[in-house]
């Protein structure tokens, strides 16, 4: 059984059904890309995986390392080893990056982390993300630029060392330098720590810096196409519309048959 297994996942918000039967399996050490046009349900999937209360699972399950976590609280999922890098990270005024990291690390542990060990890890992460040392004493995301927020997300990921990370459009709004730093950070965490990642993106850019082994295309709440990195190239050539034409019909048939 894969570390993260999503089976026949149907999700709705207050007014409508967004995911209509998603299946996905991700193991540690694998890099998956989930691509899709706007409104296809990418962010819904990311938030649902992390347990956002606004999304209701109407059918299907999320299993993490053998346990059904469909009903688990977000903090329980985090402690189990899931991580979500937010598309729009929220600012937490009054709490420094370093203090927040210490709280988050300690939330997973019985004994609080030793000061020295924490410093060593933090130093390593700072170098990885190419940020200034003073970055960690600033209030988390408070007054951060778009690029700083995304770096802070990856910094947290590096410190918390999850088994599987979901990156929700981490590439959006980044200039090319920031994108490279963020993407290389993910690649290195994969190489060094065996991180498994689900990189959710609208664009192909980030995939020039992180090599996915598996690519999934999400449209209208379903995965309509799966393959390897060659899918990214095809998408670059043809765009989403071509794929929609090809698979839209099958999708409609499926719905009619359900």
């Amino acid at each position, binding site marked *: 059984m894969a570390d993260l297994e999503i089976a026949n996942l149907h999700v709705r918000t207050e007014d409508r059904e967004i995911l209509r039967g998603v299946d996905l399996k991700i193991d540690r050490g694998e890099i998956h890309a989930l691509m899709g046009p706007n409104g296809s349900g990418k962010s819904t999937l990311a938030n649902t995986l992390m*347990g956002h209360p606004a999304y209701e699972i109407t059918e299907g399950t999320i299993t993490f390392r053998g346990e059904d976590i469909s009903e688990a609280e977000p*903090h329980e999922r985090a402690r189990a080893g899931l991580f979500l890098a937010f598309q729009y*990270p929220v600012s937490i005024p009054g*709490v420094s990056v370093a203090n927040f990291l210490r*709280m*988050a690390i300690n939330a997973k542990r019985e004994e609080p982390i030793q000061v020295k060990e924490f410093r060593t890890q933090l130093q390593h992460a700072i170098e990885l993300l190419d940020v200034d040392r003073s970055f960690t004493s600033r209030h988390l995301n408070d007054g951060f630029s778009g690029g700083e927020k995304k770096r802070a997300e990856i910094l947290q990921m590096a410190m918390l060392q999850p088994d599987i990370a979901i990156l929700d459009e981490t590439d959006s709004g980044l200039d090319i330098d920031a994108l490279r730093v963020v993407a290389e950070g993910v690649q290195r965490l994969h190489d060094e720590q065996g991180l498994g990642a689900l990189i959710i993106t609208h664009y192909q850019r980030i995939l020039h810096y992180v090599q996915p082994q598996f690519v999934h295309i999400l449209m209208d709440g379903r995965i309509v196409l799966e393959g390897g990195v060659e899918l990214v190239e095809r998408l670059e050539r043809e765009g989403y519309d071509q794929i929609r034409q090809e698979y839209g019909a099958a999708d409609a048939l499926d719905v009619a048959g359900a």
Partner: protein
Amino acid sequence: MSDTAVTPEAEPGTGAAAPKPGRHREATLNHALAGAGAGDGRSLAELRQAARGIYDTVPLPVWRRSGFWTTTLRDLDLEALHVPEHPVGKTPAIVSETLAGKPTAGLLVQRGGSVVHTDLSEELAARGVILCSLEQAAAEHRELFERYYLSRLTIDRHRLEAANAALWTGGAFLYVPPGVIVEDPFAIAYVIDEPGTAQYAHTLAIGDRGAEFRLQEYDLAPDFEGTALHAGAFELYLRDGARCRLAHFQDWGTGGVHDVSTHFVGVGRDAYCHWLPAILGGHLTRQHLELAVSEPGGDMAFRGVFFTERDEHLDEFAVDLHETGPSSGDVHWRGAATGESRASFEGLIQIDPGAQQTHTYLQIHTMMLSPKAKVDAIPSVLVSSHDVSASHGGTVGELDESAIFYMQSRGLDRPSAVRVIVEGFFEPLIGQLDDEHLEELIRTRIAAKLERARGDIESYARNR
């Protein structure tokens, strides 16, 4: 004086809005003291007698303003209270616990009606610093006492103000001579440790020319069943160039302590005061806090935090008064409420005629943590000079669910996430106290309140 009102809609940064003759603040009956106090050359005995006459004839006060707000003392029976006396000696446990590990330049403790402990280092005494009971100051430092006592506080606005002036016992007196700089804070503690207590507390403090010091007043009570009264008066005068970091730490516990107090700080020429009242517990609290820039060049930061819980009732009226210019002010308050508590904070900027080149800003931020709590924040501005800027802003907030989800996604459980948000909300003020012990004390009290309100906060979130 001819007050002209600027409506609360005044935009930040627009400077003095055009005077609108005939319009007056409607929301409130609160006014600044804004004038000479009762101490006009009369002796202490004469002032006590005059106050006694008022105390004997006027009823207990009621404070009202529009918006369905009333502060009454209806469950306070003055006849049933007495002023307990205690011999000099042991410091009450609640003071030792609260101040444990805190370095102080001097400490004065009043328990009930009596000062039970005073200490001041010999070194500071040799440099002319005076820390003693106000009774002792009236007898032994008469010149200083008569010069400053009630020089800005009144005795006739309401019955409990008169009661304080007529009946105060013990009291605290601090004098820091010209040019004396003291690093550690002076601490003054008023303790009520039994129900039925009436405590008429009076602090008089003077920072002479160029003095620099810290002063902290602690108002403390252990939890008890029953009613008590703290009718307090506090006056601090800062002379030319003096600098003071002042803090009030109030936590009267869960007993029925009624705190009706008036605090006045006068900032002299080129003097500076950073004042932080932390109002963290009391059955009923009604305070008039006034910080006045009285001479040119005065500057101040008026910061405050409050946190009400259970069925506490808090009524704060804070005045940022500019009697002359150039002067500047920065008023910033933050408050939260849980349970079925009620808190009203009214902040008034008043710029008197002739106080040209005054620049001041008032902001009030509040956070509701329970569906049954109520917090009112009312800024108002009275401007009578034209070359000034006075503005205000504020927010009324609830818990940010997206921030909670964000922190949960990092492994913090919901109560921890709420705690981070609320602590972060207060941190801009607490983190600037420049006193680690006091900062930790306030943080710890706030954390304890959040812990007690856990169920409250949970159900609030579920029902939204």
